[in-house]
């Protein structure tokens, strides 16, 4: 079975309260040298059957319409193991 991963992150210019919270917590716990943290979503899609170009197009479309809002988020799609 093939797995396609869709990562969705807030656009760089958009405030990311979640990442901010983590970035502020890390030093308090003694983890230093981390300049910035962004927190996003990771979707793991298990396909039955294998990954075709056409299905990837489908998934990209889903990423754009359902899994992310292009107004505030960017997404990337990659095949993890075909």
């Amino acid at each position, binding site marked *: 079975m093939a797995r396609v991963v869709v990562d969705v992150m807030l656009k760089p210019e958009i405030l990311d*309260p*979640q990442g901010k*919270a*983590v970035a502020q*917590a890390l030093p*308090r*716990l003694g983890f230093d040298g981390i300049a910035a943290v962004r*927190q996003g979503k990771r979707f793991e899609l298990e396909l039955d059957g294998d990954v075709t170009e056409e299905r990837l197009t489908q998934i990209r479309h889903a990423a754009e319409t359902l899994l992310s809002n292009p107004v505030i988020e960017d997404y990337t799609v990659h095949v993890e193991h075909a």
Partner: protein
Amino acid sequence: MRVGVVTFPGSLDDADARRAVSLAGGEPVALWHADADLHGVDAVVLPGGFSYGDYLRCGAIARFAPVMSEVLAAAEGGLPVLGICNGFQVLCESHLLPGALIRNDHRKFNCVDQELVVENTATPWTSAYSSGQHIVVPLKNGEGGYVADEDTLDRLEGEGRVVARYVGENPNGSYRSIAGIANERGNVVGLMPHPEHAVEELTGPTTDGLGFFVSVLEAAVSA
């Protein structure tokens, strides 16, 4: 009898918890997350809310607050500790209680008047109830689904450490309809529903919640 109520950044029900303590006849003491000192209180409540926004995981960051190291130590020593909602999540993240709380199975925040059955009345927080007593208190959260592995769940049931269970339809997908649990010793209790919102006829669905705060006063007296 002095009951401490911790305020983390983002705590919301701390004032309500303090009011509940007063109505039960106790003296509420406000504790500050950054102050590693329990000021000699006889019991501690970790109130509901969204500590640090709950952005990472509910309770994940609050767990590291300076006051929590004191709470942990005191809890080991038998101090009665009640975690309500976000407080329950903090206790799980701190591993004072087993398991974890995840997103409600219906994925919505929901605020309802919830019927519970109190199953363990041996804890300092539930002695005022009779075993098997049904009560109605508000339930309000987005991440109230209690989860733990089968062995843990069996152990909790076996040792009678399920303090309260949801009655009727499971409101959030909690495994075995668990609404609240206790540690081995019974002094540390975590509860998803909000007894502090059911302490006055005027503002609550019932006054069924007062028992938790009355119980701990009695416990302290008899202790």
